[in-house]
């Protein structure tokens, strides 16, 4: 352990496509999944991460290193997260939120979820379905019923016409 040897402990993570990554234990334990393994003494050899591919894991490790280098300053951490996610495309975001979920990294999950929500902003239902590759499983009647439930008429900016 780091405390005994005085040198930082590194862990080896293995993606599901067999890429190996070295990462400082202090950064890796941002993942609760990995932290539990370390605490249980199961992190000695290579840690296999069966649900994460190499490309995504590389990104997550960049994030782990970046965010753990920032001292306890929530503002700075937030701006790092924003910058980190700013150039990620939709596919990458989708992979990353699943990886963050599997690794149990709540701060990354929250940030990526917010980013994914931004993708949906002011988009039509059809656009969201195509972008997310989701099949419309409503019958026309059910869809009409849901529409009826939410009779929201968006007005953008409007004048007060109640008087």
């Amino acid at each position, binding site marked *: 352990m780091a405390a005994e040897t005085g040198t930082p402990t590194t862990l080896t993570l293995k993606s599901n496509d067999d890429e190996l990554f070295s990462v400082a234990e202090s950064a890796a334990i941002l993942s609760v999944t990995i932290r539990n393994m370390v605490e249980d003494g199961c992190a000695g050899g290579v840690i296999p991460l069966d649900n994460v591919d190499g490309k995504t894991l590389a990104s997550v490790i960049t994030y782990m290193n970046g965010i753990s280098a920032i001292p306890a300053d929530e503002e700075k951490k937030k701006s790092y997260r924003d910058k980190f996610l700013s150039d990620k495309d939709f*596919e990458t975001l*989708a*992979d990353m*939120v*699943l990886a963050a*979920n599997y690794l149990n990294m709540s701060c990354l*999950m*929250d940030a990526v*979820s*917010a980013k*994914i*929500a*931004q993708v*949906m*902003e*002011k*988009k*039509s*239902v059809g656009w*969201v*379905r195509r972008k*997310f*590759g*989701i*099949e*419309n*499983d*409503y019958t026309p009647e*059910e*869809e009409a019923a*849901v*529409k009826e*439930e*939410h*009779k*929201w*008429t*968006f*007005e*953008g*900016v*409007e004048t007060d016409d*109640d*008087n």
Partner: protein
Amino acid sequence: MEDWNDIPEELLFLVLANVLGKDRYSFSLVCESWNRVAKASPYHPSPCLMTFNRKSNHVSKYFQHNCFFRMNFPTLLKDATVRFSNDGWLLMMSPDDRTLFFFDPFNNQTIELPPIPSHRTMYNTICFFHPPTSPDCLIVGILSNTHHEVEVGVLKYGEDRWDVVLLDIDHQFNVSFCPPILHDGKIYFLDVIGNVAWFDMTDGRSGCLSSVNNFGGNWWKIYAIGCFM
């Protein structure tokens, strides 16, 4: 990314927490499972200002996230009055002034409540703590009765009748419409001239905190603000 059709619900909850206004409506329409998530979401959107259209009071107007939008109120609720709101629910009073019920305007859901105890007028002030779907939900109504006594009615989640307690307050106390405040098991409430009384929910004790003998100003301008530190 394999498939958004198989995404775990907890991740959809997280995404939905950041989806606002009309986009939440689109979210619900995407597919059945997304609609289920939208309905069950533990995340509440930010506070929302609601106004009634005066010409047709079954249409209400909302202001949230810097946008206006409208929703139709069911005609069933026409002429009902909003008495209190919390957790996305409105506590409403029917036009006969006798019946209270909860209404969730976002999901168009109504929860009926047992009638207030007989021979009593409607509470001067009424409030609730925790959403009506929670086992912790508690509704508290307070009134000054015709004998100049203060009566507290408490309705707990799932119970079919109100518990009524007469308070021991030694001077005349005309309960104000200002919503009560719950702190540390005690309900604090005002009278029309600004006196503060309390009622302990756990042991039923009560008392008067202050007797200001007319706070000055008008009764409809006196409010209690909870700031216990």
